[in-house]
């Protein structure tokens, strides 16, 4: 076969094939890297539950009626039947209820000798719906200290709204966590003051949250005995962008609030992946055109040699085998190089993503997609070669 290769190698334009190799490498590498990036963004590392994408939560409440402010009724709540119906929806993975406190709460802090006191509210939800599990997130009646998680938004409101406009110092999360709170619980004929501490800041919960164990204990001790239906629910959903969710909420007069940012991150990741893959696909298509033209020109230039070989008794298949081998070799090398680039790129962004609790996605999808594309491109190439040589 060496002799045939020697004949058919003539007129091969190194520049054309180098351009093809480069273009298809860039195209394939972009596609594979984009796929890997998407996999990394949508993968929850097993050890950490605080992901930006993947698990998605929405907090829902009934729309407040226009006249609610003038009536004596409580905020509209979710009955057990409502919750059961919600749980039956295909896009729901789990539902957690916010439990309200049935007693009065006052919180006070002393800052630089000045005391600040305010009425407060507490809510609790099952721990699995909280995006963080800070240290000290438990309550023991024998040694009653109340751990509190507040919304990151509250701190942001203070730091960037209130403090900035009033010339007050901005506070960090660590600083606030050090501030001792005095929490007064009043109801059922009792009044007690317990120490409290802010142990964490949640980006998911738009409330002041306490552990469920504390809420159960406090409601039985200071509550008025009535059990009310929850007015807010936290719902874990499969895909927050699912239009069925918004349709359902609208038809049931329910408002969604809360942790919608993570869903947006998911959509952004999917947009980035789509755009990058599209760019990669365009480049890969251009590469395919380049190689098709190169093959066409090569076969035209070597037309005489090809027809001479067939004149000698070679079959078109034997003649085209050399060009097919050439293309397959190039494409396999391109695939290997693109895989290496994809792995190198994911290694580069690994630390950055790990810092926000992401990464570790399997490269398998990217490799399978890359191999599939390589196979399709190679098939198109070899069919082109076979058709051109068969014409002699």
């Amino acid at each position, binding site marked *: 076969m060496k002799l045939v290769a020697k004949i058919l190698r003539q007129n091969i334009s190194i520049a054309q094939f180098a351009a093809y190799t480069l273009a298809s490498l860039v195209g394939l590498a972009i596609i594979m890297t984009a796929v890997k990036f998407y996999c990394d963004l949508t993968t929850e590392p097993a050890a950490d539950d605080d992901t930006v994408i993947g698990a998605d939560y929405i907090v829902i409440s009934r729309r407040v009626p226009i006249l609610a402010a003038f009536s004596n009724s409580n905020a509209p709540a979710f009955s057990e039947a409502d919750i059961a119906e919600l749980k039956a929806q295909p896009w729901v993975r789990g539902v957690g209820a916010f439990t309200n406190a049935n007693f009065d709460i006052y919180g006070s802090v002393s800052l630089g000798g000045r005391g600040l006191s305010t009425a407060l509210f507490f809510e609790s939800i099952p721990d699995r719906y909280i995006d963080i599990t800070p240290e000290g997130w438990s309550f023991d009646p024998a040694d009653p200290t109340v751990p509190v998680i507040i919304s990151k938004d509250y701190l942001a409101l203070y730091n960037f709204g209130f403090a900035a406009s009033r010339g007050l110092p901005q506070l960090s999360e660590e600083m606030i966590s050090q501030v001792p709170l005095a929490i007064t619980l009043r109801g059922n004929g009792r009044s007690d003051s317990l120490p409290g501490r802010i142990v964490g800041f949640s980006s998911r919960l738009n409330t002041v949250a306490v552990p469920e164990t504390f809420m159960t204990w406090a409601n039985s001790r200071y509550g008025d005995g009535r059990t009310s239906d929850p007015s807010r629910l936290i719902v874990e959903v499969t895909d927050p962008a699912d239009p069925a969710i918004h349709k359902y909420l609208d038809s049931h007069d329910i408002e969604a609030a809360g942790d919608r940012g993570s869903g947006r991150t998911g959509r952004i990741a999917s947009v980035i992946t789509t755009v990058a893959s599209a760019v990669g696909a365009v480049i890969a298509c251009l590469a395919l055109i380049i190689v098709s033209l190169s093959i066409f020109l090569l076969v035209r230039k070597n037309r005489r040699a090809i027809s*001479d*070989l067939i*004149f000698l*008794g*070679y079959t078109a298949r034997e003649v085209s085998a050399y060009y097919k081998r050439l293309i397959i070799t190039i494409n396999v090398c391109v695939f290997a190089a693109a895989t290496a680039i994809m792995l190198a790129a994911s290694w580069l962004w690994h630390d950055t993503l790990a810092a926000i609790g992401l990464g570790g996605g399997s490269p398998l999808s990217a490799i399978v997609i890359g191999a599939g594309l390589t196979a399709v491109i190679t098939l198109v190439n070899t069919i082109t070669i076979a058709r051109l040589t068969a014409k002699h």
Partner: protein
Amino acid sequence: MDRRIATITLVSVIPAVFETSEVTASEVWLRRVELRRPESYLVEAASGMGKSSLCSFIYGARSDYHGTISLDGRDIRSYSATELAELRRRHLAIVPQDLRLFAALTALENVMVKNRLTDRYDEATIRRMFERLGIATRIDTPVGRMSLGQQQRVAVIRALCQPFDFIMLDEPVSHLDAASNAAVAELIGETARANDASVIITSIGNRLALDTDKTIRL
């Protein structure tokens, strides 16, 4: 395809570009001609009477003619590309007038391109053929740098590197002197006899020094 071909039959064949009036004196065009193995034939013709076309038609390389050419009764036009390749490896050998050698390959490589298809001879046998035809010293020279006479002899050796029932030689010695002509004729005659094959030679002038059974005017 393994059966040897005994007869090549031409019925009312005429190149598509020819007028009927041009070929009235021809013993081939528009007539019925049977070429039977192992008889040998000399096809004599004036220039432009279609010698090379005739070789290409029989070899299945061109089909721009009217009429029918059949090998043992089977129309050459009905052969598939694969069957044609097989035909050219085992049954029909040819030295075309334009030789169709690969200029960038050496003389030996040109022969080997054919021989590796048929695995007919070992390299030593091929080298002996080069010696017999007086071009042993040029065996590793690229064909593009050889004289036409030397190239003709390379093409003859290449054509012999296969089993064949018919060998067509289109003006094979047009650029050879008497001594080389005799050497070529001897090698071809000997190989054809060993193959029990027919030799078909075309000539307009300097003809191969090989006795033929029949002479046909084209």
